[in-house]
């Protein structure tokens, strides 16, 4: 499968996600600069990496969400292309309107950087098919603005539609209903604050993150 990683000025997990995608797909992803206006022909998955695009100016992800490549990503997502946004990538997806809600400053005001237990809420998605529903997995988080907010009606709707993919097993950052990862209504766009690409082999201390990428490969292959 051909994959693409979008690189914004200030992205800093772009190489980590590239390593994870290459490990699973066997081919290097295309690294696509944010000023590009088209995705490479035949792209089967787009990843928006973690980092601090544009130095988090104005709001985390706000500037990146308006960059030229995001128009192409939005168009492709509307046609069903799988899009995965991790950490800053999740913030970009909410700012771009591809996912509901917003990510605000952590409730405790601290930058949180550690492994956190997540519960897989929905294992019947393109991104979670290799997990069991209710399974506990340990995945690292590293963010300052991961406090998920949406109004009560939106939260009820996304919960009712099975669009909460992952939930924190503890209160990490003040997120509404401990939501750690959210899907769009069609199920082909996932945003999550934790970093599955940082836990894909034994040397990382565990490989629970790897199955997310393996599941995607299966789907798109």
């Amino acid at each position, binding site marked *: 499968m051909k994959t693409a990683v979008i690189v914004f000025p200030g992205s800093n997990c772009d190489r980590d996600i590239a390593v994870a995608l290459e490990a699973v797909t066997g081919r290097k992803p295309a690294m696509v600069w944010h000023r590009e206006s088209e995705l490479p022909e035949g792209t089967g998955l787009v990843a928006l990496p973690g980092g601090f695009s544009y130095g988090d100016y104005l709001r985390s992800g706000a500037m990146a969400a*308006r960059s030229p490549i995001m128009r192409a990503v939005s168009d492709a997502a509307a046609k069903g292309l799988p899009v995965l946004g991790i950490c800053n990538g999740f913030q970009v997806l909410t700012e771009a309107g591809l996912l509901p809600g917003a990510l605000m400053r*952590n409730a405790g*005001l601290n930058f949180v950087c550690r492994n956190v237990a997540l519960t897989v809420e929905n294992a019947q998605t393109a991104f979670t098919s290799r997990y069991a529903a209710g399974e506990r997995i340990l995945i690292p988080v590293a963010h300052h603005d991961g406090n998920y907010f949406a109004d009560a009606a939106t939260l009820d709707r996304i919960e009712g539609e099975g669009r909460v993919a992952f939930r924190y097993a503890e209160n990490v950052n003040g997120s509404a209903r401990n939501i750690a990862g959210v899907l769009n209504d069609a199920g082909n766009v996932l945003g999550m604050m934790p970093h599955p690409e940082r836990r894909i082999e034994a040397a990382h201390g565990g490989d629970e993150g790897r199955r997310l990428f393996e599941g995607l490969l299966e789907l798109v292959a």
Partner: protein
Amino acid sequence: MKLRIYVTLKPGVLDPQGKAIEHALAGLGFSGIEGARVGKLIELEVADSTDDSAIDAMCRQLLANTVIENYRIERLEPAK
């Protein structure tokens, strides 16, 4: 023309920074602090011909995230 765009959190959206400020002021010995909310002030210099709908679109498309924020536009005197 000079514009001031005030971007504030919607009522009901928790503001941990505001809370920290509230506590810090109380810690400095100020009494009667009943709340603090943090917002942004963006000063824009635009052509005098810029119409209201364009200014509103700037706020909705970039300057404020209307999921969590409100905005208010203040027009200062047009440049001479």
